[in-house]
């Protein structure tokens, strides 16, 4: 007999794949029988064809439907079971109070941290968004190449603003490709402190001088007057809070004020305060640019000077144009100008407002990085902390699954299907997460005032915003699914037979993922601890840096009065005579900031291609003595030596930059627009840290200023009581300079300001690192106590057979210690890599020393041991009689 013919295999496969399992047998049999019969009747081809047709016809919904099991008990409605699930969930929560507290507490802390960080991120990302023209405002910046490096500054010449306005400005119609790129071009003077005098009261307030389009650009909300107020020649717009300070409840419009005792202005408007945290938050008043230019001689002279780059320019783009296109169009405006030095390859760059806050760093002409790093850092920390809390939840739930195994077995045996169990356990975890969420909202509510203080923010919980609750709900669902997913799938997969027979064993299959989770947790925590320590070490390193002067007992004061030179000698003499003051010095820049840098220097042996940019600080003869700078060579300025008034004092960086061996007595020339001065070096001082303490000091030139400096630095007499000394100074100043507000700052406090941002980061990071460790330990504590509970019998037997407490302690602890050591290895590598990169951004930076890693590792180990030992020792001390009798 010839071999039996075969039907097409793929059709058979299809049948088996799709058909209801309880029908496959008969259908396959029928198909086969018909096929064999047809092969005989009409040949193989036809039979195969009919076979395929039949298979296709069999695949219809009515035959593919799975068999429904006929139950012989009642099929409860879903809501009935829901009641039962809820009841069981609450019973479980209340029965194991300790675990529930650990679970909910840990999760709540994690959520609270994530929520705070989320609020912080939201706040950071929405800075400046309150300006209506947020997307279209840009600051004009300038790139220039100095000694092969591109630096980017906001200082620009006045004529550039005029060119931008004349060629590309206005929203009127002109040549299509050029005109109408900008709706506003605003020339401005840097936000700075000025004296405001109202009849005989003096105030020191920060504000800006801007051209009249500024209120439109900044979309000021006018409470009184109008945005056009700035168009009047001698006008001033006040912020709401300043108006309140000056005038109280009376109407300030048309009241007269004096700025810096030289400009008399009328109040023409009051605008709503610009939001705290925004880039213009310090602008308490706006006065007309023209007024400032007219009253300040050198600005007036600079109005056609392309080389005097001392001014700010802001623009608003027309709605239809793209930032990048406009930036490309205006790029060469400076380099095409005859007055500008082409060697510096100056480029005009537009810096969009949307990047001001988060991307403030420029590297080689490219705008990158800045605060955005911290946004990322905290975002990642937030996700990690929440993740740690979720891991805890998963770990505890699966570890405790043994206790639920019997329940699962019985539920399955009496008819629960797997998806019902999944729903049950998901529901339970959602319930726990929802409870944790409620607790976390409470925690956040309590923590927000403290957090605001640490982070320097004004965040409020947006209880009324539907978005907040929407995000919250999404948050609960997401966390519920992440945290509850694994336990739900795992618990529901138990086989009732094994579970109920009692041979249930959670062996390595489940213990391994749990160990992985513990390792992940501790890796994150240890890495955060190392990071925190390094941040603090960096701050401390910069703090301990020699700063080149003695900052204790120094106060600084801004003097904005005309003809101060008439009073300077009297004031100094009277102050010293009063005994409250040891010495008084003047300078053009405050001690804690370099406000002026210049090129145009020349000296013997200067390489022709070297481009010079020195910090130039005009001082009085006594400035050095006042601040207490340290001489390496030469001598300080002296009133007795007439030649000293044409001398300069250099700092070490300047000497190194100039490359001179024997610098004393060397002539230095300084040429600028309209002047040409010859100096000679009389001394070299140790670098004075005026700018960032993380950067090397700028090469600096100190000279006797032709005009008196605006900043008085006063060395207090340490023998006098501080309050009394300040009162004496106030009296002397009131007598001789009644127009000057006695608005002093302590130099050491100002210097400390330089560390604020890093300190804030350090404090927040340590806070979060602490919480991460706390959450991890909470989880470990739960796990350890659970393990001990599981092994009660084993421990009892071991004790009976003679094991000591130490033996048992080792037995229970060594697993965890091993895990923490692995975590430490991983965390060390990650932290080393990340922190090494972080430190690179500081020129003046600490080393990553091994002891930080050692301390964090040992610390983590000790914390782990304490956490675990508590449980281990407790279990080891139990009387074996008790633990063995328990059945």
């Amino acid at each position, binding site marked *: 007999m010839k071999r039996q013919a075969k039907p097409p295999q793929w059709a058979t496969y299809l049948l088996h794949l799709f058909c209801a399992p309880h029908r496959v047998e*008969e*259908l396959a049999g*029928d198909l086969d029988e*018909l096929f064999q019969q047809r092969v005989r009747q009409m040949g193989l081809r036809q039979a195969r064809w009919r076979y395929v047709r039949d298979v296709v016809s069999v*695949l219809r919904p009515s035959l593919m439907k799975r068999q429904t099991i006929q139950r012989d008990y009642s099929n409860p409605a879903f809501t009935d079971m829901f009641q039962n699930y809820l009841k069981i969930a609450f019973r479980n929560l209340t029965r194991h109070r300790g675990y529930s507290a650990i679970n909910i507490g840990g999760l709540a802390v994690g959520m609270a941290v994530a929520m705070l960080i989320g609020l912080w991120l939201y706040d950071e990302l929405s800075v400046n968004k309150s300006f209506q023209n947020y997307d279209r405002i840009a600051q004009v910046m300038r790139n220039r190449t100095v000694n092969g490096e591109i630096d980017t500054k906001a200082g620009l010449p006045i004529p550039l603003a005029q060119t931008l306005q004349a060629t590309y400005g206005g929203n009127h119609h002109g040549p299509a490709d050029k005109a109408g790129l900008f709706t506003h071009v605003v020339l401005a003077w840097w936000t700075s402190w000025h004296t405001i005098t109202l009849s005989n009261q003096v105030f020191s307030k920060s504000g800006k001088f801007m051209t009249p389009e500024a209120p439109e650009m900044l979309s000021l909300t006018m409470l009184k007057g109008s945005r056009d107020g700035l168009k009047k020649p001698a006008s001033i717009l006040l912020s709401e809070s300043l108006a309140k300070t000056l005038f109280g409840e009376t109407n300030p419009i048309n009241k007269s004020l004096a700025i810096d005792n030289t400009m008399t202005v009328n109040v023409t408007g009051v605008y709503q305060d610009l939001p705290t945290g925004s880039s213009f938050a310090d602008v308490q008043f706006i006065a007309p640019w023209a007024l400032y230019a007219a009253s300040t001689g050198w600005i007036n002279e600079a109005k056609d000077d392309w080389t005097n780059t001392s001014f700010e320019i802001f623009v608003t783009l027309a709605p239809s144009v793209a930032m990048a296109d406009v930036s490309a169009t205006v790029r060469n405006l400076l380099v095409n100008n005859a007055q500008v030095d082409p060697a510096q390859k100056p480029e005009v760059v537009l810096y969009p407002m949307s990047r001001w806050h988060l991307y403030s760093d420029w590297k080689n002409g490219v705008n990158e990085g800045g605060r955005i790093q911290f946004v990322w850092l905290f975002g990642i920390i937030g996700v990690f902390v929440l993740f740690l809390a979720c891991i805890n939840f998963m770990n505890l739930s699966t570890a405790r699954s043994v206790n639920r195994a019997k329940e699962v077995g019985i539920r399955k045996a009496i008819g629960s299907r797997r998806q019902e169990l999944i729903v049950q356990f998901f529901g339970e975890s959602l319930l726990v997460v929802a409870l944790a969420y409620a607790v976390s909202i409470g925690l956040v509510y309590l923590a927000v005032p403290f957090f605001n203080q640490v982070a320097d923010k004004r965040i409020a919980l947006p209880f009324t915003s539907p978005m907040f609750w929407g995000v919250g709900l999404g948050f609960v669902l997401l966390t519920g699914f992440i945290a509850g997913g694994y336990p739900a799938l795992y618990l529901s997969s138990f086989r009732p037979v094994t579970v109920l027979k009692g041979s249930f064993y959670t062996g390595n299959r489940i213990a391994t993922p749990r160990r992985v989770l513990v390792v992940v947790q501790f890796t994150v925590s240890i890495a955060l601890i190392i990071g925190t320590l390094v941040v603090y070490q960096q701050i401390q390193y910069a703090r301990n840096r020699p700063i080149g002067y003695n900052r204790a007992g120094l106060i600084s004061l801004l003097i904005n009065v005309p003809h101060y030179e008439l009073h300077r000698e009297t004031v100094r003499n009277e102050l010293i005579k009063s005994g409250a003051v040891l010495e008084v010095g003047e300078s053009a820049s405050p001690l804690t900031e370099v406000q002026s840098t210049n090129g145009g220097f020349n000296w013997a042996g200067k390489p022709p291609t070297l481009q010079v940019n020195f910090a130039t600080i005009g001082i009085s003869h006594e400035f050095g003595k006042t601040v207490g700078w340290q001489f390496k060579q030469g001598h300080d300025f002296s009133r007795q030596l007439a030649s000293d008034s044409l001398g300069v004092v250099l700092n070490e960086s300047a000497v190194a930059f100039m490359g001179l061996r024997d610098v004393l007595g060397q002539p230095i020339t300084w040429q600028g627009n309209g002047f040409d001065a010859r100096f000679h070096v009389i001394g070299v001082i140790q670098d004075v840290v005026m700018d960032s303490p993380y950067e090397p000091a700028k090469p600096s030139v100190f000279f006797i200023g032709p005009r008196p400096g605006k900043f008085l630095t006063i060395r207090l007499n340490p023998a006098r009581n501080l309050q009394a000394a300040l009162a004496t100074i106030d009296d002397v100043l009131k007598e001789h300079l009644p127009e000057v507000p006695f608005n002093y700052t302590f130099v050491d406090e100002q210097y400390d300001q330089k560390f604020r941002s890093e300190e804030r980061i350090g404090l927040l990071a340590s806070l979060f690192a602490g919480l991460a460790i706390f959450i991890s330990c909470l989880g470990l504590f739960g796990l350890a106590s659970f393990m001990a509970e599981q092994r009660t019998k084993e421990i009892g037997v071991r004790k009976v057979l003679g094991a000591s407490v130490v033996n048992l302690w080792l037995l229970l602890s060594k697993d965890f210690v091993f895990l923490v050591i692995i975590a430490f290895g991983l965390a060390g590598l990650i932290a080393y890599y990340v922190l090494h990169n972080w430190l690179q951004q500081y020129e003046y930076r600490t080393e990553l020393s091994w002891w930080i890693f050692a301390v964090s590792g040992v610390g983590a180990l000790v914390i782990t041991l304490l956490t675990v030992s508590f449980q281990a020792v407790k279990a080891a001390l139990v009387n074996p009689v008790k633990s063995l009798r328990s059945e």
Partner: protein
Amino acid sequence: MKGTYLGEFEEVVLLAVAIRTGDAYGAAVVNEIEQQMGRSVNLGAVHSALNRLQEKGLVNSEMGGMTAERGGRRKRLYTVTAYGRRALEEIRQLRNQMWGAIPNTAWT
């Protein structure tokens, strides 16, 4: 219980089950219909009709014993229930009644 209306194909299948009483399974019904009516039917159509008939209570089914010819696979054997038989008789009676009602003049 679903509606008792019998479609044309369902009626044919029910009749085929009755003809093959004792050995009425899918393939047999297919063969019976093909022989009796001379038209080819799909196995799927037959099974789905049998399914519907069973849901309506007109047939019963049970799995038969194993046979060698089908590779050891069992057959599902269908039997017409009393209710099924009455349904067939009712249809037949209805038809007869309608035949009787045709006036003699109709065919001329």
